[in-house]
């Protein structure tokens, strides 16, 4: 059988294994990749390949950055840093109409700067902000949507696990990717705020104004921002100025967060142990996703399918942007049916070479893929953030959350359009730092 046909068959089998058997994404990619490689090359070569890939991926220095940044986020969560960020944002804008929702986005943006995961950001801010918004009679169509979508900032704003994975899979500089994510994350956050303001204009009952606070209270609340700001500046600053590598930045971030949290007596021993347990679980899942994608990628590479797809797309007599829109549509659709991180890891071996063949800047293209992937985390029926918030607010109907999220999808699409129209949004900081 033609190798490319085997590659296509492999993808079909993978989809069946994923959707019908419900096999974990990382395992499914590894198993199908192993079987396909056995068929195309030989069973013995496939056995050697899985041993070498599992060992070399698990022991890869570059990947050790993943557990470290995840641990940093969990420590920050257990130390209550998110609560103090929210409190500060709330004191400054809580008295506006929709102010609590805006405060949630502002706190999300700041927390995302020390936490690399969208679900962790959504879970953290959901636990902190939802009770407050309920207390001030915020409509659940605004409050849940704010928390669900605000979590996506964790993916775009550095440090981000998604950006680390893209960097490792595509051999792009993680530092450049981190720098490139800053402005798009700010733009996305601002568009969320605009959405909240417009919604509260149209439906004043959605977000009644909260109580006013004095200037003294406002200034005092800024103390809560200092710890997060210190961690962000030291970690990201150290990275940018070459004091440490991404992995070292992760370890330093953990240590700084620990020092800050223990010195302020905000982190308990139980919180520390829980952070370690949660980190091991999540990072093992991410490692398995990456390993599965590498094994599946090896199979696809021997079938030469990704290169054929890239060559075919590059030869099409249409603008590269038309193909980009098609790729984004595939990501959006894929994100609707499976976990967005899993889908990203699965498709990078096919769509990244395609983007490069079309002549796109790899850093910009990676940020575009990240932004589209984040949308997948909030689109029904498999938007992972939606279920995180549903778990936090079991009384609220899933349909209400879906409706609530739909208001914010326009902001997500708007930010992607802006990024396509103005690629400098992503490239200006890394170019300025490295050229």
């Amino acid at each position, binding site marked *: 059988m033609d190798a490319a046909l085997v590659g296509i068959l492999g993808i079909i089998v993978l989809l069946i294994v*994923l*959707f*019908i*058997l*419900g*096999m*974990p*994404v*990382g*395992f499914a990619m*590894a*198993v199908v990749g*192993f079987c396909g490689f056995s068929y195309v090359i030989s069973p013995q070569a496939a*056995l*050697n390949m*899985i*041993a*070498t890939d*599992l*060992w070399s991926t*698990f*022991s*890869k*220095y570059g*990947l*050790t950055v993943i*557990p*470290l940044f995840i*641990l940093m986020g969990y420590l920050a969560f257990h130390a209550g840093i998110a609560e103090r960020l929210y409190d500060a944002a709330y004191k400054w804008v809580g008295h506006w109409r929709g102010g609590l929702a805006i405060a949630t986005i502002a706190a999300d943006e700041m927390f995302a700067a020390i936490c690399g995961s969208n679900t962790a950001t959504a879970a953290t801010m959901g636990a902190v902000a939802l009770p407050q918004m309920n207390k001030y009679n915020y409509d659940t169509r605004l409050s849940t949507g704010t928390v669900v979508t605000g979590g996506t900032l964790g993916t775009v704003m550095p440090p981000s696990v998604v950006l680390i994975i893209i960097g490792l899979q595509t051999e792009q500089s993680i530092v450049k990717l981190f720098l490139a994510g800053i402005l798009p994350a700010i733009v996305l956050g601002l568009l969320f705020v605009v959405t909240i303001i417009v919604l509260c204009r149209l439906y004043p009952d959605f977000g009644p104004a909260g109580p006013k606070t004095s200037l003294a209270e406002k200034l005092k609340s800024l103390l809560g921002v200092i710890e997060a700001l210190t961690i962000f500046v030291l970690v990201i600053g150290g990275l940018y100025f070459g*004091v*440490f590598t991404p*992995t*070292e930045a*992760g*370890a*330093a971030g*953990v*240590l700084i967060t620990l020092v800050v949290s223990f010195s302020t007596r905000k982190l308990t021993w139980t919180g520390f*142990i829980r952070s*370690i*347990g949660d*980190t*091991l*679980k*999540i*990072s*093992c*899942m991410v*490692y*398995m*996703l990456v390993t599965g994608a590498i094994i599946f990628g090896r199979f696809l590479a021997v079938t030469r399918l990704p290169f054929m797809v890239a060559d075919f797309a590059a030869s099409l007599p249409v603008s590269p942007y038309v193909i980009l829109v098609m790729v984004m549509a595939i990501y959006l659709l894929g994100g609707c*049916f*499976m*976990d967005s*991180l*899993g889908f990203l890891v699965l498709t990078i071996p096919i769509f990244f070479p395609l983007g490069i063949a079309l002549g796109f800047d790899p850093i910009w293209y990676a940020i575009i893929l990240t932004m589209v992937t984040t949308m997948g985390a909030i689109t029904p*029926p*498999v938007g992972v953030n939606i279920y995180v918030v549903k778990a936090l607010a079991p009384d609220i109907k899933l349909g209400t959350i879906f409706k609530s999220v739909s208001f914010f999808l326009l902001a997500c699409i708007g930010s992607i359009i802006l990024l396509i129209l103005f690629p400098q949004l992503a490239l200006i900081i890394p170019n300025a730092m490295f050229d």
Partner: protein
Amino acid sequence: MPILEKISRLMNHAFIFVAGTFMVAMILITCANIVSRLVWVPVKGTFELMGFFGAVVTAFALGYTQAKKAHISVDILVNRFPKRVQKFLNGINSVICMIFFTLAGWQIAKLGNTLRTSGEVTETLRIIYYPFTYGVALGCFLLSLVLLVELAELFFSENGAT
């Protein structure tokens, strides 16, 4: 079967403790390296040790992560099937993954044997590293054991794990 379940649970607890300890060691080594490099010279072999410790952290957490159902899967369609079908599919799922990780563990152990018999050492520290390779193999075997327990639960428990 409760014995198998108990063994799996105890082993997972022990392994996750080791994984957590290695993770803390990773943070300490890296931070020591940053400080040492800034004031004097880098700590020799940090790069190598970090990779090996990372391998232990991940491999030793494999079973625990599976036991906690933390590996992401697409259950949108599976959840719509009748319970009996779900149970059947879960069984197939466990068998396939169990075979795969047993094969992987066996092959990685073979790789460890090769490294041991050839006396392979690391480039900087000149230390043997096959024990870490065996560690990864052990992690794969523990994951297989967890999958076996899940499979056994499907057969022996009233409701089965769906």
